[in-house]
């Protein structure tokens, strides 16, 4: 079953790749903030000020004005983080 040596080797190599990515992620501050990212993605739509008029009522239309305001605030929040 020396094929196992190959598979274990390949799997370890893949695991090592993941480990390096993990170390990189931690070192570059990817995980310093574990709250803002989860909220930020909710505000990533329709940020351009001169938006085309929309047809019909999209399912989330009611949230849009609120989103836009919070978004500005939010992108400011994330600034210090990106300068780490």
């Amino acid at each position, binding site marked *: *079953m*020396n*094929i*196992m*040596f*190959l*598979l274990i*080797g*390949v*799997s370890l*190599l*893949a*695991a*090592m*790749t*993941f480990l*390096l*990515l*993990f170390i*990189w*992620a931690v070192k570059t*501050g*990817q*995980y310093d*903030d*574990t*709250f*803002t*990212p*989860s*909220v*930020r*993605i*909710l505000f*990533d*739509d329709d*940020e*351009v000020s001169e938006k*085309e008029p*929309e*047809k*019909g*009522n*999209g*399912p*989330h239309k009611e*949230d849009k004005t609120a989103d836009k305001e919070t978004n500005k605030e939010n*992108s400011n929040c*994330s*600034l210090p*983080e*990106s*300068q780490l």
Partner: protein
Amino acid sequence: MEVQQFNYDNKIVKYFIIATLIWGAVALLVGLLIALQLAFPAFNLGLEYTTYGRTRPLHTNAVIFAFIGNAMFAGMYYSLQRVLKARLFNDLLSKVHFWGWQIIIVLAALTLLGGFTTGKEYAELEWPVDILIALIWVTFGANMIGTILKRRVKHIYASVWWYLASFLGIAVLHIVNSVELPVSLLKSYPVYAGAQDAVVQWWYGHNAVAFFLTTPWLGLMYYYLPKASNRPIYSYQLSIVHFWTLIFLYMWSGPHHLLYQALPDWVQALGVTFSIMLIAPSWGGMINGLLTLRGAWDKVRDQAELKFMVVALTAYGMATFEGPMMSLKSVNAISHFTDWTIAHTHIAGMGWNGGMIFGMLYWLVPKLFRTPLYSKKMANTHFWLATLGILMFAIPLYWAGITQWLMLREYNANGLLTYPNFLETTTQIMPMYHFRILGGLLFFSGFLLFFYNMFKTIAMGNLVDNEAAEAPALTDSSARKAGETLHRLIERKGVVLTVLVLIALAIGGAVEIIPMLKIESNIPRIAAVTPYTPLELAGRDIYVANGCYNCHSQQIRPLRWETDRYGEYSKIGEFVYDHPFQWGSRRTGPDLARAGWVGSSTYKTAIWHYNHFTKPKEINPQTIMPAYPWFAKNNVDLTDIPKKIRAMQTLGVPYAPGYDQKAVADYKEQAQIIVAELKASGVDIAADKEIIAMIAYLHKLGRDISPANQK
């Protein structure tokens, strides 16, 4: 801070969505066809192209790579751009990725129906298609990594990590499992043999489940569930923890597909251990998803997309609990080779992947096309049809699996098997196969509503091909500078460079090391086991081409009720010349590992095989085996034989040097013996027909170690 203007590429997302809808319909339709074929053999349509052994791989490949694959790319390409605040790296790469993937799907359909297959489950595609898959997959990866590098948000959102792991995982798995030696344009032999091939295949097979059906979909869940419910993910921290745990553990669990089989115990134990540990990270995802809806369950009542996602997460939780349980040897003895496994895969496939696809698209399509959904009512009807369809599909199959297992292991007072004839167990579960068709029909009719609803929505809508967006430039020093070439950028990014080098090393290493490993040293050899004769080898190729492994295993487990039924349990040394291994994973018919062992229950004479292949119903009126009358009409191409012998020699099969020149003569000589045998039974047939080779191959199975051979 400078605010940059850019565009999102919505067109490529639209392409992948339309491909998802079309291939989804095809994949489910083929699924319906094979369900019908199992209950009513007439649906094999009397054509070699449409018999179950070829349509079943078509169904699995179409569902996984065409339906789920296209949906995954659509979902990734939409969310990647938005969470990274960047247009996709390169429009040309996006186009090559899309069209390349569709060409692969069309080639897959044509080759699988044409009988061009490697005979390895979910990796059936032949070598030219394998190469194309690798190229397109790398195109996709380059496009994704390029987008990550030019992002405008420093933080890489959880979803992107899952996408990245999926790309890396599939790249490594596909390349290692697909190392094969071409014989002709559409025929190759895997370099691994027997048990080695089995281990590599299921290392791939299980990780394809991991990195194609799980990790991309958890990533998509982490984007689309918060978006659809407008709630942040319950615990971002948990998403990080279970991501790293899951990708570290998954790679090792493959051998749980080979429990009790001809494999060293320690390899089996390794697979079981990691499979059990996988419960934790898997449930991390389910819990995180469901708890995201905390305080928002009222939305589930109103939004069909959330209903689907809730079912998806529930199905994911059930399947990832059931999976580790099925990895326990005692449970595996029941579930393996029976319909239990088929039920399990459909809970995961229809429930988790199906639910995520439907949920994602019910949210994404109206959003992308800037219009409300064409019909909410239709979406809700679809939800109930799909959910009831899954239940009506899976429950009968669980029932069938356990019923069949109970019957197979039933002994009477005399200590003999109560149901020695395998067919009795198949007949018993036939009503369950009828229910399963109904379940499939329900699910498919729901899909048709979805299909109609989606196209109506798309027609009503108005897609902005290049959606304008703006975001502050990333001021981080590691970001790409104006005018800098991609290579310079990668050079500066030590980590990225290291990762790419590792991938290159993995590919290079695999190519270098694998050929050296092809002849195994520490597999216990059995002196009596000899290579296949040219006639038997030709028969084996026909066996593989027709997908016989989809219904017949060649692996007897050391369980009393298996050895009593089929004979001596399978040994690792019996398979050293099997390129590819053909152990199978489901017994719709009896095991064939002892079909050449004179005196075993599966040993049949040449004339029996002839009659059984041409008119199986005349031998067993209740059989669901399709008829193969063309075996008696089609000729074997003898000009290929020397090439095949040479290929086998390259792979380490010990034919005498120069044997390829004598192979055709040997072929004819051995064929004449079977022709004479058939003639004595009143059948006149030419020696070069496929049926002669098939009979020779079946008579080889288990013969080498049988008592008759020892004399």
